[in-house]
């Protein structure tokens, strides 16, 4: 239990009460960290509260009290971090040179981690809503009060409506397994993640083709790369971005399909501003050329794939000339790329993509990409695809003992599998949960536990999300700051930031990596492992959380391994010895985890479910004459919806003006910086425009994640607009993916309205 004796009595409090210095000390905070939070200019100050950095003549420190090896959480790539600490203040984060995802470097978000740790808007203690939802009136609570209250409300819902009436949701994180443990022990089948807003199309297509979620890419010897909406130089995945730049520097050819001249396109040998939603036509024509001209790897296809004849018959019709009329890429260009790609095979790949939630045909696009890679035989070849670490096998961790989960008989509110038979149970269809909270079908949900997630900004059609939340009896959100969903919740629980806590271990092949506290949690924030155990215990589920504390949890995980927690903490990682010579020399035999054991060019699973067994042309929605496609995409300086209150990142990217091509801009008398209305079937927003040649005339683009509505985010509040106000909900029936670039918008100058 938290030590609450020294706290001032619970009081009516605003979100950020100005505590007197005495109260501040009374909270038992390190003065250094406290001072850091109060800094006007600099993020960090010394232990005695004096400015050292700012002092005339002084230079930053080069020696530190300790350097702690841990893991970044500014995005989901999980880089290794070396945190440099002096007087219990984290001064600087460096990339851990020993970690394969960072290799000594961090991206701007990773570098800015100190501003997330020392964000003045960090949640300080548990809060219980006092006024109306979204009014911003809170009562400060002790952890004991808050957890007792949350547990009583959750038990009330379970007793009255059954455990399925409680929805749980979170996003990609290391403690996800323990969050899942909580919801499974509670007995709810309703689990929402970011996946259907992100990579469902890519993962479902790879599972059906290769029997694995995501093949790895080998860059050191690659000669030819095609990227379809994988904008690696803006949407940075540290090590893979480093690999791409190095490959290009070495002379590898790069073809980029994107409606925008992104930073990746700027480095490409060929940029193809493909018509939105028609990448599939390009890939069908690639298959047509490579197959009809006999440029595929016959032996590999014969030995390792099924369904080639059906594929061959199907793609006959998709000539480059046919594709050119759909995707607006000249037939000769498609033919040239197909021939070059096949000529450089097997040292080539068409990237599977990542956030492939673009159009309702994105699943078939991803399938065609997977098939293209297969028929040129780049599997397990230098510069090709390979089975990435984490795709089965690897190091075996110890597990915390627990009883079996209660049986769940209720249908899932996300429609898997009763409405979406092919969506993997693990991926789900998040937007469908929201819609079924609204409809009350097949039953009414009554509560929502949101952990480190912000559906108010991330789900399409924010209006509907707000309505769904309004229908619920109870909402609890856990995060490190007052995100927009927390702002609308009944209880807000403050979590320790990634630099202040342990999380379950991260295993990559034969190596495991540790996230460990660099400094003590600020204020009363607590690690997720502690929160779940305390809440679980109050829900009568203590048997599912059989660990004393976070360190005990990790100790149980590493029990079978030849390393102590103390050693692990020093290095931050551990590599288990491998048995040498497991891979046989000479002829390689591949097996794939598909029904046929081979790569499925034609999929019986798809056929039996009533879908096309091989990819066929599907027509995406076409925009009307005066409408634009509203494209989604990323920037290097922000992650999803979580970094906009980081002052260092806000400084780099403070808003999201709407990209528009000069031609349609001129028609609307819009100059760079003018205000415009953007209106869709989902809603409308007013935003400045950025007039640029770097986008197709039929498309507009806005960086997602802005437009925060929580007044608890003082930096991000009022900055930019949210595309979730505009997005219309379109769900791909095969993969459950939300089509985030399929919404069309009208644009007009703001003063005309």
């Amino acid at each position, binding site marked *: 239990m938290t030590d609450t004796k020294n706290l001032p009595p619970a009081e009516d409090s605003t979100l950020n009460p100005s505590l007197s210095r005495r109260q501040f000390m009374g909270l038992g905070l390190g003065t250094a960290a406290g001072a850091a939070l109060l800094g006007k*200019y*600099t*993020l*960090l100050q010394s232990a005695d509260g004096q*400015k*050292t*950095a*700012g*002092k*005339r*003549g*002084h*230079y*930053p*420190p*080069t*020696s530190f009290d300790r350097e702690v090896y841990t893991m970044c959480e500014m995005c989901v790539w999980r880089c290794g971090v070396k945190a440099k600490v002096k007087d219990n203040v984290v*001064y*600087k*984060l*460096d*990339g851990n040179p020993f970690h394969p995802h960072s290799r*000594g*470097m*961090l*991206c*701007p978000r*990773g*570098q*800015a981690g*100190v*501003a997330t740790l020392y964000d003045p808007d960090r949640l300080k203690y548990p809060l219980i809503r006092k006024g109306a939802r979204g009014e911003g009136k809170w009562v400060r609570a002790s952890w004991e009060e808050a957890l007792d209250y949350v547990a009583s409300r959750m038990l009330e819902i379970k007793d009255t409506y059954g455990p399925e009436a409680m929805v749980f949701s979170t996003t990609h994180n290391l403690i996800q397994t323990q969050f899942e443990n909580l919801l499974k022990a509670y007995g709810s089948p309703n689990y929402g993640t970011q996946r259907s807003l992100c990579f469902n199309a890519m993962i479902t297509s790879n599972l059906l083709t290769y029997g694995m979620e995501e093949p790895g890419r080998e860059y050191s010897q690659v000669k030819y790369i095609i990227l379809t909406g994988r904008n690696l*130089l803006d949407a*940075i995945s*540290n090590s893979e*971005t*480093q690999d791409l*730049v190095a490959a*290009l*520097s070495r002379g590898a050819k790069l073809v980029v399909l994107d409606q925008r*001249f992104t*930073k990746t396109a*700027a*480095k490409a040998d060929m*940029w193809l*501003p493909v018509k939105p939603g028609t990448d599939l036509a390009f890939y069908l024509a690639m298959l047509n050329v490579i197959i009809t001209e006999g440029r595929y790897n016959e032996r590999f296809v014969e030995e390792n794939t099924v369904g080639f004849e059906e594929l061959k018959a199907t793609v006959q019709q998709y000539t480059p000339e046919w594709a050119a009329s759909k995707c607006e890429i000249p037939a000769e260009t498609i033919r040239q790329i197909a021939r070059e790609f096949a000529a450089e095979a097997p040292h080539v790949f068409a990237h599977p993509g990542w956030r492939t939630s673009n159009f309702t045909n994105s699943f078939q696009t991803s399938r065609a990409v997977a098939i293209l890679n297969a028929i040129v035989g780049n599997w397990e070849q230098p510069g090709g695809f390979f089975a990435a670490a984490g795709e089965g096998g690897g190091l075996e961790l110890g597990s915390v003992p627990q009883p079996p989960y209660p049986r769940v008989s209720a249908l899932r509110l996300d429609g898997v599998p009763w409405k979406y038979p092919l969506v993997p149970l693990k991926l789900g269809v998040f937007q469908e949960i929201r819609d079924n909270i609204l409809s009350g079908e097949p039953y009414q949900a009554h509560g929502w536990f949101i952990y480190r997630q912000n559906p108010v900004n991330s789900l399409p059609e924010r209006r509907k999300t707000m309505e769904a939340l309004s229908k619920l009896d109870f909402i609890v959100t856990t995060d490190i700051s007052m995100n927009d969903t927390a702002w609308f919740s009944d209880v807000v629980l403050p979590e320790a930031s990634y630099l202040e806590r342990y999380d379950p271990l991260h295993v990559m092949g034969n190596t495991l990596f540790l996230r460990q506290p660099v400094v003590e949690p600020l204020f009363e924030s607590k690690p997720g492992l502690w929160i779940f155990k305390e809440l679980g215990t109050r829900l009568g589920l203590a048997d599912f959380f059989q660990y004393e504390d976070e360190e005990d949890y990790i100790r149980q995980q590493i029990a079978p391994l030849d390393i102590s927690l103390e050693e692990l903490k020093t290095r931050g990682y551990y590599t288990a010895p491998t048995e040498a010579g497991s891979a046989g020399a000479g002829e390689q035999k591949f097996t794939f985890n598909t029904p046929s054991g081979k790569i499925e060019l034609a999929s019986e699973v798809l056929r039996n479910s009533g879908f096309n067994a091989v990819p066929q042309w599907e027509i995406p929605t076409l925009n009307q004459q005066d409408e634009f496609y509203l494209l989604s995409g990323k920037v*290097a*300086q922000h992650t999803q919806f979580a970094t906009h209150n980081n*002052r*260092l*990142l806000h*400084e*780099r990217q403070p808003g999201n003006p709407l990209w528009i*091509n*000069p031609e349609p801009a001129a028609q609307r008398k819009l100059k760079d910086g003018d205000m415009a209305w953007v209106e869709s079937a989902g809603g409308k927003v007013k935003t400045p425009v950025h007039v640029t*040649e*770097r*986008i*197709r*005339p039929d498309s507009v683009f806005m960086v997602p994640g802005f437009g925060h509505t929580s007044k608890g985010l003082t930096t991000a509040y009022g900055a930019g607009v949210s595309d979730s106000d505009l997005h219309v909900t379109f769900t791909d029936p095969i993969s459950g993916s939300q089509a985030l670039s399929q919404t069309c918008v009208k644009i007009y100058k703001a003063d005309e309205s």
Partner: protein
Amino acid sequence: MANPAKESNTPPKKRWGFVMEPERCIDCEACMVACSVENQVPLGEHRNWISHKEMGIFPDLNITFMPENCHHCSNPPCERVCPTGATYRRDDGIVLVDYDKCIGCKYCMMACPYDARYVNEEKQAVDKCTFCVHRLDAGLPPACVETCVGGARHFGDLNDPYSEVSKLLATHDYYQLYEEAGTGPAIYYIRGK
């Protein structure tokens, strides 16, 4: 803490400098954030930056990203105009500001053709890139170099023929910015393909 500016431990014949590869710069700005944190640069100011050269009309476009910071000139205009001697040049070519001598007249800011300087209100002095001299003196590369995701920023001793920077210059075509001003900048840019 000792002021590293006053007691250079580096051998006199060093000439620290940058070789930038604009083709490898992805404009992610990790260098800018790393510098802000390392040097505790006040929010709103920055010591390094990336300029864009955008050319063409849709769909024939071209963008070049140019990472930049103080050029630590061998003939620094900022040093010449400083009335108090606050700006000075070390033996190893690093141009620094003695914050105690700076009176904030901003002549140096006017003189610098690269616009590399800003007023640091906390220090009550003009400030700029120091090549992370405190890190150099501890044997570490500048923070921006260490974290450069694209590997566009290279740093080292231009006088050492075996250094990475010297090897890059020996094997590539390169150019400098405002060379014609006679500043003798210590940043070189590798010409693109």
